[in-house]
């Protein structure tokens, strides 16, 4: 592990001066406790991750998908982590670190509510008061997680600026931190923000690929041909990639949200997608230089995705760098394809994925699935060869939080694959 603050030209520390002393203090704590395991910090972290979180988590062969794609498909089951998503790996690490640093209060932003939930759980577990900032749009579309945070005794502060999604929630949490920095630790939820957050969050999440790499070698006798993970800020992504980055033969695919379209409306400042790796330009947001959705003046665009956790105009600086280096391939999947993939994984494998996660499976279907009308022009085998014979997909989280959104969005679209929910009409309830 290393505490790099720049990834190529990306990264850095673009934050108000008032926060810089706290960031220096955090950098010092990260180097001592996380990198050097001072006072046995990492031992305690690993122990709690096992006992409280349930690690290690299985790498499971997906029998139906393997048959469908004629490829060995393995699932890294982060959905089985306590809380239902990879987010706890980072949240537990940072809340514990805050304790070692003598901080008294935890704040965090959340998009899908998974990071907020994981932080609320970790804070309750480690007996720290906790406040979560969440955009109002996300509060409405991820209600189950709002309940969970409140039940775990966290305050949830609605953010009403802009579109009321992750970008606004991060800005508002930074404002809280600028006020309370002497006593409070800000648990950033992805590999974004000023250094040392991107490297530190990656280190906490890298347990995913540390386990997966050993497990795949044990199960198949070799390395996979490809690893796929969805990417919002990119924490499950870098977590799943990190230990494979030096393995040049393993292709790494970061699957972003293509939303409803890849085009942008400069006039309105809206990009109906969250594909910052695929379509963004270099700029500075939330403390780091990275790839962003922005207009030609540098104003940040409002992103869009059906999945709250991917709905963000930026992305982690390390991923931006690995994309420029050609080590990570950015791809994207639109809302419709993600919804379809959500139902397919639920029906074929008995795993209800988070909508974020469903994007990774949407990509698998697009490149390796049976030909459809839309895809007739793209010969299947070509893509199939791209992915190779053994593929790991990171199942970043489970989809309980998304059920209402999925049913609603599915009905709007009339998807063939969707289950019939008329049972509610029969009993006179409606949906």
């Amino acid at each position, binding site marked *: 592990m290393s505490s790099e603050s720049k990834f190529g030209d990306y990264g850095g520390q673009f*934050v*108000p001066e*008032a926060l*810089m*002393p706290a960031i220096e203090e955090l950098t010092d704590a990260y180097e001592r406790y996380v990198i050097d395991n001072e006072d046995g910090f990492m031992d305690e972290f690993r122990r709690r991750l096992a006992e409280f979180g349930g690690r290690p988590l299985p790498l499971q062969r997906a029998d139906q998908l393997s048959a469908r794609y004629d490829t060995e498909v393995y699932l890294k089951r982060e959905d089985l982590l306590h809380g239902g998503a990879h987010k706890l790996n980072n949240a537990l690490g940072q809340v514990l670190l805050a304790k070692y640093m003598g901080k008294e209060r935890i704040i965090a932003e959340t998009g899908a509510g998974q990071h907020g939930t994981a932080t609320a759980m970790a804070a309750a577990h480690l007996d720290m008061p906790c406040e979560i900032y969440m955009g109002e749009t996300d509060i409405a579309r991820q209600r189950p997680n709002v309940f969970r945070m409140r039940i775990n005794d966290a305050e949830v502060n609605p953010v009403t*600026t802009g579109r009321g999604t992750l970008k606004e929630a991060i*800005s508002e949490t930074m*404002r809280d931190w600028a006020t309370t920095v002497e006593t409070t630790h800000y648990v950033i939820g992805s590999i974004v923000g000023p250094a040392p957050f991107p490297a530190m969050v990656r280190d906490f999440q890298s347990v995913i690929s540390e386990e997966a790499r050993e497990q795949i070698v044990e199960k198949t006798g070799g390395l996979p041909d490809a690893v796929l993970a969805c990417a919002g800020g990119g924490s499950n992504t870098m977590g799943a990639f990190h230990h494979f980055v030096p393995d040049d033969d393993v292709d790494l695919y970061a699957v972003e949200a293509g939303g409803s379209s890849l085009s942008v409306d400069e006039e309105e400042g809206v990009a109906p997608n969250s594909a910052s790796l695929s379509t963004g330009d270099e700029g500075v947001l939330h403390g780091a230089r990275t790839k962003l959705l922005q207009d030609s003046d540098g*104003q940040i665009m409002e992103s869009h995705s059906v999945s709250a956790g991917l709905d963000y105009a930026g992305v982690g600086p390390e991923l931006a760098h690995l994309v420029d280096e050609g080590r990570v391939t950015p791809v994207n999947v639109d809302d419709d394809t993600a919804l379809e993939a959500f139902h397919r994984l639920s029906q074929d494998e008995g795993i209800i994925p988070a909508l974020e996660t469903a994007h990774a499976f949407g990509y698998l279907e697009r490149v390796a699935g049976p030909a459809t009308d839309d895809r007739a022009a793209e010969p299947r085998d070509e893509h199939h060869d791209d992915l190779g014979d053994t593929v790991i997909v990171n199942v970043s989280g489970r989809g309980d939080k998304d059920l209402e959104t999925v049913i609603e969005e599915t009905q709007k679209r009339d998807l063939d694959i969707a289950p019939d929910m008329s049972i509610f009409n029969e009993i006179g309830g409606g949906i």
Partner: protein
Amino acid sequence: MGLERAFADEPAFVPYLAAGDPDYDASIEYVEALARGGADVIELGLPFSEPIAEGSTIQEAVVRSLDAGMSPDRFFEFVEELDVDVPLVCMTYYNLIYQYGSGQGPEPFVEKAAEVGIEGFVVPDLPAEEAGPLRAACDEYGLDLIFIVAPTTKGDRLASMMDQTSGYVYVQARLGVTGAKDDVDDATEESLARIAEWDVPKAVGFGIKTGDHAERIVSAGADGIIVGSALVDIVAEGHENGDPADEVAERLEGKARELKAGALRGAEQQATAEGS
């Protein structure tokens, strides 16, 4: 370089407004009213979509201004059109500076700013660690780069800041984000005491709302006061009530006089205290 000159004879009153709030024409009138009311330097905000250092007052001003069509190019036109005899400082976030022109760095923005008569910058999301390229461009075009000293800035950071800042230093009066407050934070006096020996003028901002606040802060050793949200509140209220722009401008001018007078009283007290 030369923003120091605005602080030379008496305590400076440094007002802030978001350019283009609530619209271009009214905003021109408002800035000119502040100059009439005794401003010694004016900080003009170029609105950025993610103003992470601002409280709700200025966040809302940013939204009004952007909705009315403000952009970097419009901002430069705005500055050219202003009829004021007061040095102007541009306050904005780094991404707008970085993207302008080439999208490759700060130089085109600084060149254009110098051309329209901007004399310095305050960039709240650019700490000294990341300021090298902007500092170099400012040096090339003879502009000042003003750094913010926070209540948390101590030790080595303070020393490196003294070397880097030019024109004046922005002393952040309290932790947190911008916004008018009903009191003067004790952190102000502590922060001023930490940098008492610095040669560069010390302007205090964050939370100042009244002439009495101005008086207290100047008597505690500040060379100037920076006031934003208390003025933006006047703009916002006028906008919500649909008041004519000239009336709002008059209120701003009155508030400016109150603040400047408070600063002058503070200077007298300081002189008396030093004399005794």
